[in-house]
């Protein structure tokens, strides 16, 4: 149980599963990496980023920039302004609307996607900074006739009402179970503390995530 402000909260994930800032994907983090990294590590980062990134040493924008994002295993070309966030690029440019824009400042988790194995808030990642990463969205897990076990568990336990927070929760749960395949209830409550629901579906969500863990382990759908 963490604290934020003066109120009791548990709406943040553990520091090790933080979705933003410290996770190394922010633009600021990248720039700091370059500044400090005169050694091999820094150069390595720069080289990897450079494969897909716009002019090295120069700057991007302010107009549209052609970028390539690897989304659900497929390289996807698009043109966005450098200031456009990943969630806006997904929703407005690519018509991938599973991730929702709700708080737009890394609080509620409705825009959750998985980026190179880490759960991130897509509202707080710039699209151009997502180049070179493996981006997994709700559209990329499961298939039309075989939904992902987490999605199925949400149905079985009625873990959704209006459903607007649901895709974010499903992605957060998937990312959580990838790291924590045998969770306790307490771990579920902590691990999904970075997502918020307004209709009040947490009772179903707790059960759904525990069930999904068993399903995935049993290899049914895995």
């Amino acid at each position, binding site marked *: 149980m963490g604290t934020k402000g003066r109120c009791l909260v548990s709406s943040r994930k553990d520091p090790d599963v933080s979705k933003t800032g410290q996770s190394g994907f922010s633009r600021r983090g990248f720039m700091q990496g370059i500044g400090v990294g005169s050694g091999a590590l820094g150069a390595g980062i720069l080289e990897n980023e450079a494969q897909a990134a716009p002019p090295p040493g120069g700057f991007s924008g302010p107009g549209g920039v052609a970028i390539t994002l690897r989304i659900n295993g497929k390289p996807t070309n698009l043109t966005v302004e450098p200031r456009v966030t990943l969630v806006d690029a997904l929703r407005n440019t690519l018509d991938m609307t599973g991730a929702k824009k709700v708080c737009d400042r890394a609080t509620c988790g409705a825009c959750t996607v998985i980026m190179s194995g880490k759960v991130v808030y897509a509202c707080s990642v710039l699209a151009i900074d997502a180049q070179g990463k493996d981006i997994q969205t709700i559209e990329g897990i499961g298939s039309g006739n075989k939904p992902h076990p987490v999605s199925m568990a949400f149905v079985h336990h009625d873990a959704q009402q209006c459903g607007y927070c649901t895709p974010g929760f499903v992605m957060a749960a998937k990312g959580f179970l990838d790291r924590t395949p045998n969770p306790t209830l307490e771990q579920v409550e902590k691990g999904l503390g970075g997502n918020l629901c307004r209709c009040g579906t947490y009772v*179903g969500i707790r059960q759904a995530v525990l069930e999904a863990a068993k399903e995935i382990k049993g290899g049914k759908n895995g």
Partner: protein
Amino acid sequence: MANYSWPPMEKRRLMGKRLERLDGIAKSTGRAKYASDFNAPGMLFGEFLTCPHAHARVTSIDTSAAEKLNGVTAVRVIAKPGTEIQWAGAEVASVAAISEDVARDAVRLIKVGYEVLPHLVKEDDISKAGTRAKAAGETVTGDLEKAFSEADVTHEGSYGIPVITHCCLEPHGQVVEWKGKEINFRPSTQNVTGVGGDLAKNLQLPATDVHVKMDYIGGGFGSKFAADLWGVESAQLSKASGGKPVKMFLDRRTELTIAGVRPSAFAKVKVSAKKDGTLTGWQSDSWATGGFGGGGSPPLPYVFINIPNQKKNHSAISTNTGGVRAWRAPNHQQATYLTCCALEDLAAKLKMDPVELFAKNADLTARPEVYRNQLKKASELMDWGKKWHQRGDSGAGPVKRGLGLAIATWGGGGHNSQCRAVIHPDGAIDIELCSQDLGTGTRTIITQVAAETLGLPMSAINLKIGDNSLPPSGPSGGSTTVGGVSSSTRKATINALEKLYEAVAASLGAKQDELEAVDGRIQVKGHPDKALTWKAACQKLGVKVISEMGANDQKNPGGLNAQGVGGINMAEVEVDTETGIVKMKKFVAVNDCGLVVNPRLAESQIHGGVIMGICSALTEERILDAATGRVLNADMEFYKLSGVGDIGEIVAHVEVLPEHDKRGIVGLGEPSAIAIPAAIANAVANAIGVRVQRIPLTPDRVLAALEGRNA
């Protein structure tokens, strides 16, 4: 006339079963398309410029720089010079552009001059409201002075419940395309049938010009009935941009500032009782704000309406803040909070178990038997008898446990709903009504009723909702949807069946009224051997399509739906008296809702109501800055909702009993969301031995109350 009554409990195949919601997979795979998910080629984005002052007059506005910006297609002035603005966040101008970012750039280029005027944004201290407080006039019943002087015990207390917002995750907004004579309107709305007419009226157009479509809504809770200024502006921006569709959804800051609030309520209450707990007198001086229009008058005393001697005064305070909208059970959360806190304090003074006090006074309510039974059931589920202790008598350690109780009531009934049932000669079935599914499970309920009536599986029903070309069905408010749509669907499907019986009676050698629809067959009643399969029966229609209507009769629902439900809520909390942190341990909610169509969905409604109530009890409050008049926490970081780890154990008990069942269907969305903050506040008082006068029960307030500094 056909008999429309519900099949007896024991004969229902689908109604009453714990079926999964039909749109569950669409939602949990991200495929469900909400209004805000709609994209179209060439679509533009709309943005508002809002006023930073709580009270101001616009003196000048210059949009020329915004109009010249590349990518901007339209700029409109909403508040012309001379306009007096009454709250921060009010809309001043609107812009359409090729992207949200460009639209925001344009908004920043608009120059507005303001004459800043004095404002009032806080209402907790009524003595500072001056002429902004409007008294509603005194209501007197019996002889209160006599009751107080003869009482064995009296209690006086002050209580407060703040303004909170709806905080719908999908913000208010829409996509509008105004091309020629036709307007395509895709709003996030609780009112698909009526919202098109509302937009048309604002644009001075015939309602027939507006085509409304909405498949999914990301939360409404009472705040999304009208077309609103953003609907009108989107339409005008679309027209001004050559008919291109304009998407305009409020950003979170604007959403939390102007898109609706629940009014506050504050009161000084005095109650009296005899030694045995019998209530004899009630006095309340209450006040509230719901924004500039005042608003918010909680019905007091709540539920215990027949306390013999009463005197009540209420004032509505006009503040320079965003306006009130219906919020899941308007006025009831406030009323039960003010009433049940006072009664719990009185019980503590009497050294009486509040369950006993409530049971003792059940005759002062409209439904004594229901409440007595619910008190019993809830006590059992909470293990109240074993866990309850006298106030403050909770051991020596710093962490104290306590139990609290509160009561709820709501109306319900069925809204004005019409349904069309279409049976095609190939056996396919359309069920058509212009309802919406707020996430309560309306799609599932309608399909259960239709399939039950037609003797078919759920998969046989092709349900069409969310389009205003379908038969009208009322707005989803007041917990009236389930009553309305289930009744109209029942009637339409029975009417359609009658037509099918007429077509096949001869071939089964029976009269029309001797037939029934069972297990996918049309058969002579009780004779599965004298039957046609559904498909074979429909083939007898030849080229004729059956299309029959059914309507809920609000004046005479015929036992299909009813009004009036109750609920008892009990909370168990743990309070750390060193940190002031309140932790939910267990919550029990017992509700009746007449005939229960789907217990799984009903329980989800209750869970949702309880969790929303936990948010308002512990963390939720719109905080205004007295100096600037602005909302300080118009974001989701500091406008705090509870997370998955904050809710404790929740036991939802929906009473499935013959005496409730025979009343017909009653909505549950609102009654389940009423008495939670009151129960939690009472549990905290029971745990720590003192009353925290105001919610949310934040650590600072708890610590202050412990130190004798209630504020």
